[in-house]
Each structure stands twice: as structure tokens, then as C-alpha cells.
């Protein structure tokens, strides 16, 4: 029954969702809050008891018996290393806040709403805990359904287009990624085929992530790795999202309800970078070394392009959504720098972006609840009306911009330093990027400061401008400024932003072990590649 302990992280939210189905509507939010809080506490206990914070090992390993397809080596296999656990913690922290933050915003189809929030929590935690490719894929895909409904039912005016686009983009992408993973599993099964004495043979399939990862890295040829890389990138780049595949994101973010945007930016985008971290980098090192500059250029285009788009946005939510595209570019850049600094920056960025952008979406949701508008032309000088809101808005914007002392700064700097030092001549961890890449991406930081501070300048400061409220909020009217519940939602995020700004070491240290294992093949691969290049040229 060891499997029950990690499985409860999924089962408690699911049980909560079932309970909500049978409970009266007015108790739905309390059940959801209870279930998510239990899950949060559970995940904290798991984290405290976790033994591999410093060595990159896996814990919580367990297989649920008799589920899956035994003949194919598919099982519900749990396991977590420090990076997975950090992301689990981020998820279990954000979901109860989303539940709490939605108390006044959702008045329609309440039971379904909280039910879907719980289901999506289970799916997201499942992604981070999965140690089996198919279990991972099932959870990865299943996040689509709750999000589809969250956007489609509680979204704003253009929601039907947004949810369909979101679904089709991610579904298609992950199908291609599945094809790549199936190919790896097939190669493994072929090479390890068992020959029976009778003359026949049967393939020995497994979908264990660890087995397939070490197999792919060690055995697949360069051209095979290239194809697998392309397939996996198709799936994960849509989710991140990287530049040409990002078009679903602004639409989905803008139309989603506040909690949906928070989860989308806070956790779902990380499924893409986590996929890069867990699958792409360790599985196909030869191809990654070859294509690192390409991926880096795509990320930099994304950083700059999205930042320029942010500059001309009128819609608050759309602005923050595009800023996510820009920020996640740094994260991917840190990963393909192929050195520990960059990767630590990337992992820290995943957490930080979840905290600060999540909080920004909460803040915009609070404005939207009061004014039914996100249009920057209609809003201005709100600090006069809502000083508390104004304080938090400035605080999280600065965290997002990367003000030293707040969390965004550390991770952005680490990603950039990682990129900067990732030149072919570096001693310990040579890479394929270098100062020029860092310089180009650095311009993105300046852009970020400009567009985010312009937004704050318009919306928070200046002469007060309030739109006429077209439809009064249903139910309990909200006070002009934030109520205690809303402040309570923001405070944990603010505290963490501040703490990780001054003391990022716990996270970076925790990630270090895992990163070292993941990058172990790279220095040699890069040197080999560089040597071959110079021999050719």
C-alpha cells in the first residue's frame, strides 16, 4: 500500500470533486477549499519527509497494482525528485488560493466550477508525479478537459473560440509528442526483444520514464534523436508556449475566469517546461546540443516579440498573458544553456513565474469583478480608490519585472548568466550559446520593465478613471478596496515572492542535485560536437 501515500495527492481532490457532485451548491466552495487545503498540507508533509533534497534522487516511488496494461509495461508509477516536488508544491499552493479567490466571482454553475478546479489539480499533480510515460501522457492530456470547461463556461465574451483553439493546439501538439515517445519505447522494445526457445520472439515493452530516458540518451542515433526532439518539442513548445505556437495563449488567458488564468499561467505552462526538463533534455542530448542555438533563437524571438506586443496592449489580461510568453522564453533559454546555473534559473523561474504572474491574474480578476472591465483606456489612477490593491499591484509587477530583492530578478539573472557563460570554450559546462544570446535576451528585460511599468503607471497612478459599471455584481457586493479574503489570497504569494527574492538558495540548492543528474551527459556531448564542428570547418 505504499502507493497510497503519493496517490492520495490525486485522490483527495478527486474525492472532493465527487463529494461536490452530491453536495448542495452552497457547500461546494467549502468542500473544495477543504480538499485542496488537505492536499496542500499533505504535500508539505511529503516535502518535509522527502530525503533527496540535495542529491537528485527519487522518492515516493510506488506502483499501483493491476492498473494500466501489464503486457505493455504500462503502470501507474509514482515517483518524485526535488524538481517535481517543487512543482507539486507550487500546484497545491495555487489551487486552494484559486478556490478561495473565486468565492465571490463565481455565481453560476458553482458545483461544476469547483469540481473542475479539483479535477485539474489532480491531473496537474499527476503530471509531476508520473514516472511512466503513458501515465504522464494521460494526466498531461487530461488537464485539457477541466481547462476547456473552465474557459468555455465561466469565460468572457469570446470564450468559445478561445477554448476550441486552446484544445486543438494542445491536443495536436501532445499527440505528436506521444508519437515521439512511442518511437523511443518501440526502439527499446525492439532492441530488448526476448527470443523464445521456440524460435519466436516478443518485444519487451516498458514505459518507465527512467529506463526509456537512459536508453534513448545512450542508444538512439543522432538522426533518430533529431526526429524525437522535433516530435517532443511540438508537444511541449505548444504548452510553454514558444514563439510561432503561442497564438492560443493570449486568447485563452484573456477569456478564462481569473482562477483559470492563474492556473494556466501558474502551472499549465510549466507542464511544457517541465516536459523539456524531464524528457527532452535527458532523452536526446545529441540533438539538443545540435539544436540548442535554434531553440535559443526561437525563445529570444518569443521574448522580444511578445514584449513588443505587450507594449501596445489595451487589455490588462492580454498584456500579462503576452508577458508570460516573454517570461517563459527566459526559462527555456536557461534550460538550453545546458549548464547548472541556467537550469537552476529555469527551475526557479518556473516557481517564480507561477507566484508573481499568478498573483497578477488574481489582481486583474479582482478589478474585473468590480468594474467588469480590463480595458486600460477605461481604468486609471485606481490607487486613489483602492490603495491596498494598488500596493499589491505595484509589488507583483515589480516582482515580475525583476526588481532586485524580489524573486523575478534572481531567476532572470540566473537564466541570463547561464546563457552568457554557455559558450563553447567554457571549462566545466561548455554550451552552444554565449554573450550575444544573453545580450539579445537582456533587451527583453528592458522591454519588460517598460511595458509593465507603463501599465502600472496608467492603471494604478495618475488621475482616477473608473468605468461605469454596466452590470452590478450579483450577490454580495464587494467593498471598493480589497476585502480580507482577497488580501488573504495575495499575502502567501507576496511573502513567497519576497522570501525567494532574498533567499532563493533553498530552491536552487534543491534543484541542483536533480539538475546535475540531468546534465551529466552534456559537457562531453558539447565538446564532442564542437570538436567535430571545428574539424569539419
Amino acid at each position, binding site marked *: 500500500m505504499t502507493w497510497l501515500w503519493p496517490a492520495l495527492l490525486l485522490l483527495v481532490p478527486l474525492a472532493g470533486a465527487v463529494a461536490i457532485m452530491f453536495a448542495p451548491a452552497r457547500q461546494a466552495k467549502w468542500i473544495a477549499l477543504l480538499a485542496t487545503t488537505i492536499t496542500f498540507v499533505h504535500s508539505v508533509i511529503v516535502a518535509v519527509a522527502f530525503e533527496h533534497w540535495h542529491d537528485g534522487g527519487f522518492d515516493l516511488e510506488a506502483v499501483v497494482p493491476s492498473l494500466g*496494461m501489464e503486457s505493455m509495461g504500462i503502470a501507474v508509477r509514482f515517483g518524485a525528485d526535488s524538481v517535481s516536488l517543487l512543482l507539486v508544491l507550487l500546484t497545491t499552493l495555487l489551487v486552494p488560493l484559486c478556490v478561495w479567490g473565486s468565492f465571490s466571482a463565481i455565481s453560476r454553475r458553482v458545483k461544476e466550477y469547483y469540481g473542475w478546479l479539483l479535477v485539474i489539480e489532480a491531473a496537474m499533480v499527476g503530471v509531476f508525479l508520473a514516472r511512466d510515460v503513458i501515465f504522464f501522457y494521460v494526466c498531461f492530456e487530461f488537464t485539457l478537459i477541466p481547462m476547456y470547461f473552465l474557459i468555455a463556461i465561466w469565460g468572457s465574451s469570446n470564450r468559445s473560440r478561445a477554448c476550441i483553439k486552446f484544445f486543438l493546439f494542445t491536443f495536436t501538439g501532445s*499527440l505528436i509528442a506521444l*508519437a515521439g515517445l*512511442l518511437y523511443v519505447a518501440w526502439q527499446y522494445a525492439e532492441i530488448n526483444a526476448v527470443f523464445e526457445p521456440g524460435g519466436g520472439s*516478443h518485444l519487451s515493452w516498458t514505459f518507465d520514464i527512467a529506463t526509456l530516458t537512459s536508453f534513448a540518451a545512450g542508444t538512439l542515433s543522432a538522426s533518430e534523436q533529431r526526429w524525437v526532439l522535433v516530435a517532443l518539442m511540438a508537444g511541449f513548445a505548444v504548452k510553454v508556449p514558444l514563439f510561432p505556437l503561442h497564438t492560443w495563449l493570449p486568447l485563452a488567458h484573456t477569456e478564462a475566469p481569473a482562477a483559470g488564468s492563474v492556473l494556466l499561467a501558474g502551472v499549465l505552462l510549466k507542464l511544457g517546461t517541465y516536459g523539456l526538463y524531464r524528457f527532452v533534455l535527458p532523452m536526446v542530448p545529441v540533438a539538443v546540443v545540435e539544436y540548442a542555438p535554434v531553440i535559443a533563437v526561437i525563445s529570444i524571438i518569443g521574448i522580444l516579440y511578445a514584449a513588443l506586443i505587450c507594449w501596445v496592449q489595451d487589455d490588462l489580461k492580454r498584456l500579462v498573458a503576452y508577458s508570460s510568453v516573454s517570461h517563459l522564453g527566459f526559462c527555456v533559454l536557461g534550460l538550453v544553456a545546458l549548464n547548472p546555473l541556467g537550469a537552476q534559473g529555469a527551475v526557479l523561474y518556473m516557481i517564480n513565474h507561477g507566484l508573481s504572474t499568478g498573483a497578477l491574474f488574481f489582481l486583474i480578476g479582482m478589478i474585473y469583478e468590480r468594474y467588469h472591465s480590463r480595458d486600460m483606456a477605461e481604468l486609471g489612477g485606481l490607487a486613489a480608490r483602492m490603495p491596498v490593491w494598488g500596493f499589491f499591484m505595484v509589488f507583483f509587477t515589480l516582482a515580475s519585472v525583476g526588481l532586485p530583492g524580489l524573486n523575478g530578478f534572481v531567476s532572470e539573472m540566473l537564466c541570463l548568466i547561464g546563457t552568457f557563460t554557455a559558450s563553447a570554450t567554457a571549462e566545466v559546462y561548455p554550451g552552444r550559446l554565449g554573450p550575444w544570446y544573453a545580450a539579445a535576451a537582456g533587451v527583453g528585460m528592458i522591454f519588460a520593465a517598460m511595458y509593465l511599468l507603463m501599465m502600472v503607471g496608467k492603471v494604478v497612478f495618475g488621475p482616477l478613471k473608473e468605468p461605469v459599471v454596466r452590470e452590478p455584481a450579483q450577490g454580495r457586493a464587494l467593498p471598493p478596496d480589497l476585502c480580507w479574503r482577497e488580501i488573504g489570497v495575495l499575502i502567501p504569494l507576496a511573502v513567497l515572492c519576497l522570501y525567494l527574492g532574498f533567499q532563493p538558495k533553498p530552491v536552487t540548492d534543491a534543484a541542483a542535485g536533480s539538475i546535475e543528474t540531468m546534465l551529466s551527459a552534456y559537457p562531453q556531448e558539447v565538446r564532442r560536437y564542437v570538436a567535430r564542428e571545428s574539424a569539419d570547418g
Partner: protein
Amino acid sequence: MVDSQAMLDKVWFILPEIWLVIGAMVVSMMGLSGTRLVRDAVPVVVCCFLAVAMAGIAWVYGDADRLAGIDLLMPQLGPYVKMILCAIGIVLAMLSVGLIDRPLEDSLKSGRARFDPIRTSRGEFFAFFLLSLVGAMLVCNANDLIWLFLALELTSLPTYIMVAISRPSVKAQEAAVKYFFLGALAAAMFLYGFALLYGSTGTVVLTEMRDAFAEQAAGDGLNRLAIVGMILAVLGVSFKIVAVPMHFYAADVYEGAASPVTAFLAFVPKTAGIVAIILLLGTVGWSGHGAPGAGGLPQPILVTLWMISVLTMTLGNVGALLQRSAKRLLAYSSIAHSGYLLIGVIAGPGMGINAVLFYLLAYGVMNTAAFAVLSGLQRQGEEIESLDDLAGLRHRYPVMAVVMAVAALSLLGFPPLLGFWGKFSLLIAGIEAHRMPLVVIALVNSAISAWYYLRLVGLPILAMPTPASESITHRPVPWARVAAVIAALGLVALPLFVNELLP
């Protein structure tokens, strides 16, 4: 002189079928009874006969000695296919409760008319229902071309009548006539193929034919007549599984027939056809006869099947994109799923055939779930057909809306529903058989199909009801809706037992 023991063994393994034929006779007589209670009991009796037949299948196939000695090409197909036919048959019978003779029964109840056996067709309908199932089950036991032909025709002939009497509408008559003539054309086609196969081997017995082909292959390759015969036979049988190029009837016939009958058409003849194709291909084998150095089917047959598979799934999915009618959409989706099934057929024994059988189960459940929703609802006694009728179904019938969404997601192959595991096994089978291009095409097709299956998810749950969909009510008999819920629960719960369900 036929060995009498072999004869007895043959009869032994079709005892469940014989039992169901008795059932067909019983219900056809019960339908003529003057007592309303007896007539109403017809579907119940059908379900009982099917349940007993399931137990019977387990019993007769439990006899390992006989099973080892039986003279069949693929004896292992039998129990699995027959079990799923009977199990899904029970659900399909629930769908058809209250479908036939409704106006007649209404006027009897109100005393406006007196019972007249000549005007009732309920008994016949369910008798044909059972006979068609028997035909599909008998296909598994075919060891010669004559038996195979008769079993395939026994599957199809009753369905022509079922389509015609399924609803009192000229559309149904038109569908039946279309279905009948095209079916006859297809039968002629595969019969001609059978004749060529006989001509090239000198035998109609499948096991002997396999030996003859092995001999030919060891000599100077397969007889050309045999290849032509095999291709013609496969093309003819592809009518039963609605595969290109014999698919054109599907949309019209599925639309014309009443929804419960459409659900039946999409599953039972398809199962019979797929099993027949597997048996036919089993005679030439998947070990690469006539194609030196390569595994798999003989090249011309492989190319034909490959083309059929690709065209079928692509045409089905693209066709479904354009539909405005829910039944036509599901018809095209049925075509597409046949294309997926053929991947497993091409992959061959072992994983391939297992995946096909498992997929038949998965498809049977999800297809029945989707049609059960359509069968459980009506508008003033008329079928609901248009996709717009489903808009905002949630407001009136939340459970039916959820069932439709689950069925559509499963048809799409969305994890973790049953359809995902089915499609996944087919893809794995294709990969194992080194058919990567087919697998990639199937994945692309899945992505295309997301667009229209998403409409089936979105319309009932998300859209606002329209005046047209407001006027929808449920059918007076609850059993179709019960069947819908059972099938949807199956889609959600059966994945937990994938290990046990894989053949």
C-alpha cells in the same frame, strides 16, 4: 466422409448460436401474442437469451480438449468476439425497447383498434435482431468459404429488414432499399472473390487453403488468381465494415434508420466483417508469403489494405467535419474507426489482432453510448437528428449531455477513457509491425477528428438551448437512457480492467 466426431465438435461450439436461434423463434411468436404483457416482454426475453448465451460461450469454450482439436483457422477469436457481441447486444436490445409498433400499441391502449397479428412487427424485429447477432457469431466459427458467406449474409439480411421497419418513415424505406442493393452488390463481389480463391486452390476449407497457399508460396509464389480473389473478397467485405470504397451508403442508411438500429449497424456487421477479413487473410498469413525477405501480408494485398485503411480514416474524418446531422456525423466517424481497425488487421496476429478485438469492444461501447443518447430523446415522436438539436441539452437532460460528451471524448481517443486504450493498442500494434507511416497518419487523423468530436462535447454542455432544442423530450420508455448511462459508466470504469479485457 465427414468424421462424426469433428461434426459433433463443430456443433458443440455453436451451441450458444443454436440457443439464440431458438430465442429468435420464441420472440417472433411472442410478438404475435394478443396479450400486451407478453408482447412487452419480448426485449426482456431477448436480453435473457443473450445473457444465457454468454454463460454458454464461457462453458463451451471452457472445454480445452475440444478447443485444441477443433479444425479452425483461428479458434481463439471465438470466445472474445462472441462475448462482446452478446454483451453489447444486451445494451443494444435495451436501446430498441419501445421502438417498434409504438403507434399501434398506443391505439390499442386507448381502445381505438383491436389487436391484429398481421399489423405487428415487434416480434420479427427482435427475432431478426438475434439472427443478425447469430450470423456475426457464426462468422468466428467459419472454416470454409460457404459457411463464411452464409454467416456474413445471415448477419446482413436481417439488418435490411430491421432498417425498413425501424420507423414508419419513407426515409427508412429508402435507406433499406439502398442498403439492400448495395449489400447485394458487395455480396456478389466477395462471392466472386471466393470463387476465384476456390479456383486457385481447389478447396473451400480455410485450413486446407492455408496449406495450399503455403505450398504455392514455397514454389513459384502465390497464384495470381488467388491474389485477385483475395482482393475482391476483402473489397466486398469492406461493405460490412463501411470502409472505402464501399462506404457511400453509410451516411444515408445511418440517417434513414432509427437510431437504435443505426447503433446496431455500426457495430454488429462491422464486427462480422472485420472477423471475416481476418479469417480470409489468415489463409495467406502475415509471414510474408511471396515477398522474399519481408514480413507481413503478400505485397498486393498489403498495398490494397494499406490504401483502404488510409483512405477510410481520412475520408471518414474529413467527411465528418462537414456534417450538420448528428447521425451523419457518427456515420462518418464509424467509417473513420474502420480505418483505425484496419491498422491492427495489417499488423497481424499477436498484438495486431488482439488490438482489433479490444478496439471492437471499445468502439461497441462508445458508439452505443452516443447512439443511446439519440435514441433516448425525441421531438413529438420523431427522431432527433440535427446537431443543433443537441444544443443546450444539459439544461433539460444533464445526464444525457454528460453521456454524449463522454462518448465523444472516448471516440476521439482521449485518455483515460476506454477509446484511448483501444486506439493506443492499435497504434502499438502498428508500430510493432513496422508500419510507422500508418501510425503517423492515424495520429494526424485523430487530431482532425478532435474538431468535430469537440462539437459533440461542446454543443450539449456549453451551448445555449435554441427554440428547436427546447422542444425535445425524452422517449416514454426509459431503457435507452438507462443503456446510455451503463455504456458511459463502462467507458469510464472499464479502463481500470484493461489487463483483464485485453484478449
